[in-house]
């Protein structure tokens, strides 16, 4: 039985794209766009900016095609570029805003007047996490990345990943305690 190996397909597409085949790069875009968009929305907090970050991610990938050495998977490599672009976006936001948007998002859980909306509150709680904590939580919970993969994407030691993830979960638990057992 032939095993389908998406990682190997990615490497082949990368090789062809690096050789100048435009269609191969577009295939990579189709393959990873949805997953990376979800990650981008989690990291920047809204779909409009996430789309910009996603575009910059693929442009960065296009420019760095020849620098890809295949030591990590294409998925990890693209995620690393996305995290870098999202961090750049956050830096730009900090420069242009006096009050971060995150702080203005209220969390309704526990409010007596309006019925709580779990989805909105989860998103609001996520946006109130620090970018470092949000990154690891999204990568683990949405992308199912291993600790080692996260460490590679973020360029930090595995122990730091574990401690950040623990703190992120503790914060989320505190913010969403009304919904949790």
């Amino acid at each position: 039985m032939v095993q389908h190996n998406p990682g190997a397909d990615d490497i082949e597409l990368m090789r062809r794209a690096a050789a100048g085949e435009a269609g191969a790069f577009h295939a990579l875009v189709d393959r990873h766009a949805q997953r990376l968009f979800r990650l981008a929305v989690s990291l920047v907090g809204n779909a409009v900016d996430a789309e910009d970050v996603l575009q910059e991610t693929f442009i960065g990938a296009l420019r760095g095609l020849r620098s890809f050495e295949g030591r990590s998977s294409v998925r990890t490599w693209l995620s690393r570029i996305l995290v870098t672009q999202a961090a750049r976006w956050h830096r730009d936001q900090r420069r242009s805003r006096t009050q971060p948007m995150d702080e203005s998002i209220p969390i309704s859980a526990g409010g007596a007047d309006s019925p709580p909306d779990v989805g909105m509150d989860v998103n609001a709680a996520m946006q109130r996490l620090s970018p470092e904590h949000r990154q690891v939580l999204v990568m683990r919970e949405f992308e199912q990345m291993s600790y080692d993969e996260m460490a590679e994407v973020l360029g930090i030691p595995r122990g730091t990943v574990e401690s950040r993830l623990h703190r992120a979960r503790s914060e989320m638990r505190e913010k969403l305690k009304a919904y949790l057992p």
Partner: protein
Amino acid sequence: MATCPFSEYLEAFYDGELDDSRRSEIVSHLPQCGSCAAELRCLQAMSRMLLSGSSPKLSQIGLYRLHERVDQAMEDGVLRIVRVLSAIAACVLVAGSAWLMRTREDRAVENATPVAPPWADVVEASDSPSGAYSTPAAAWYLADDSARSDETP
């Protein structure tokens, strides 16, 4: 209340990051420890909650815009290469033209008829046995010379 010594491994256990022996320990420990079991249930509930939240999807138009942007970046890359190649070609052309002009000038100088120096006639005249001096300058020079030799005591 004392915390269970296994609690620090629960998250790694939940994330599937423990080695086999530690995982077996946790598995056998869980039925005996209420706080660890509750902690694990809380982690599961939070994951469910995060995943049940609205999962954003890139729209078709968004995907189209993404492909367009990639195409544009590819064209920009090709244009940049073309621009660099054009600049190199222009430099080679200018340098080549300058070199050609210089070479042509050098050849023109080499091929030009040599102009005889003023003393060439003098030498010819003095060498000629007839003693005929073809130019006034030569005559003057030789006359002056002989006059000087006469005056010598």
